[in-house]
């Protein structure tokens, strides 16, 4: 079984080399004339005001939160889907209950207005 993963391991290495190649080639071909104005942070020609660390909306975090919960749900359900042939009907229903409980979480977030942007 690990032989099938060996391919992935080598693939990661090669897939990293392929995009590295043009960057290295460009280093030799491209001009390199930095000056302070060129190296400034781009802000439509104006000088940057304040820090980049502006405060972000909590809303971004809440979407990531709901995503995380559903991600775990997927991890639980994929083996259930693979074993489907061997499962009796009530085992299928257990999976359905699992989905419904988490759908309840989505419904709660919806009713509380947590999914609203603004």
């Amino acid at each position, binding site marked *: 079984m690990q032989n099938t993963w060996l391919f992935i391991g080598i693939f*990661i290495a090669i897939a990293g080399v392929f995009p590295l190649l043009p960057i290295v080639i460009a280093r030799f071909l491209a001009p390199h004339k930095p000056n302070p104005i060129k190296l400034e942070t781009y*802000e439509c020609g104006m000088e940057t005001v304040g820090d980049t660390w502006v405060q972000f909306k909590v809303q971004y975090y809440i979407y990531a939160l709901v995503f995380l919960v559903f991600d775990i749900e997927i991890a639980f359900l994929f083996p259930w889907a693979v074993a489907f042939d061997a499962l009796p009907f009530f085992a299928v229903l257990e999976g359905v209950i699992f989905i419904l409980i988490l759908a309840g979480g989505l419904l709660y977030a919806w009713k509380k207005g947590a999914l609203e942007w603004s």
Partner: protein
Amino acid sequence: MSFFQDPVSAISALISNFLYTLLPQAWAHLIMTLLGVVVVASFGLIIVIFLIWVERKIAARFQDRVGPNRAGPYGLLQTFADMVKLLTKEDVIPEKADRLAFNIAPILSVVAVLLIWAVIPFAPGWIGTDLNVGVLYIAAVGSFGILSILMAGWSSNNKYALLGAFRAVAQLISYEVPMLITLMVPVLLARGMGMMDMVRDQAVWFIVLAPVSAIIFLVSSIAEIGRTPFDLLEAESEIVAGYHTEYTGMKFGLFFAAEFLHAFTIGVLFAILFLGGWRGPGAEEFPLLGVIYLMLKASVGYFIVMWVRSTLPRIRIDQMLALNWKFLTPLSLALLILTAIVEKTFEGNAWRVPALLIGNVIVLIVSYYIMRAASRRTSKERVTFKKRPVAKPA
């Protein structure tokens, strides 16, 4: 099996015979794997060069233009000209940037897309590696793309880039939810996550068994690659160019190439999961035909993506998120439950296919009525103005 039936297998058998006589077994195995990796990975990268030309030509047709037509016949060499241009452009790294993350991010974005090709079944027997967790692997690899965007936006140390990255990640993780849930429907129908089994089990194409899931997959995939109408991550009127604002030269080119490759990869995945992959008359005997079938089917998905792109305008961010959380996610959950129950009830039964189809249609109709009721309720809340007389020319 003769050479003409399956030239690639014949050549690889020739090389591996040669290697196994020459080297100890472990080394020969390693070198064969390495060769396979190089072939699969370069196939992905070569196709992207051609794709950029195709996309520009077709987009031009949609907009009543000619498109690239100067470099080479029909402008075929345009992409090479662009590559030369990008290679000779200065690579500017802003002074305040975090150099390590800034340099890794574009490479990671290409790697994330390219890794999907390791498990793509091109034809019977032609597959990089047939992992038994293929579908989940594809979903997992996608998370590196999200990470690369976050790294690019943060390391640029630029407000627009960081804001663009935040928006992009919010969109990508949101649409990953319905995508993962719909990915489970083909897995359920095929009883396995291996990509080769997925294709072999599609005596009836899964788009027939799960048409609504196929549509959800396509829509959320368009959002995943950030094409119009979901291109909020690079809404140039609001946040300049999004997370790659500070990137120049070849590093920008890599983000660009990754996006194009991802778009076509989505077409390929759609073909494998829902349109029967390499299946077609004669594909079992002549694997080369299978590759042609797969590419034709992938082009269908890719063309739909381009079609949508040139037809629809960009949607607002609140609309984008509402579409995902309030429509696609509940719908995909309902479809998963439906598929599970129907599959178990009609197991090994001739009624399985019509039952699944009817179930899909019912879900579609019910969701249509729910949507209509919901839109009636919101239209009442909308502010409307009194009708005013139109000014008439004197």
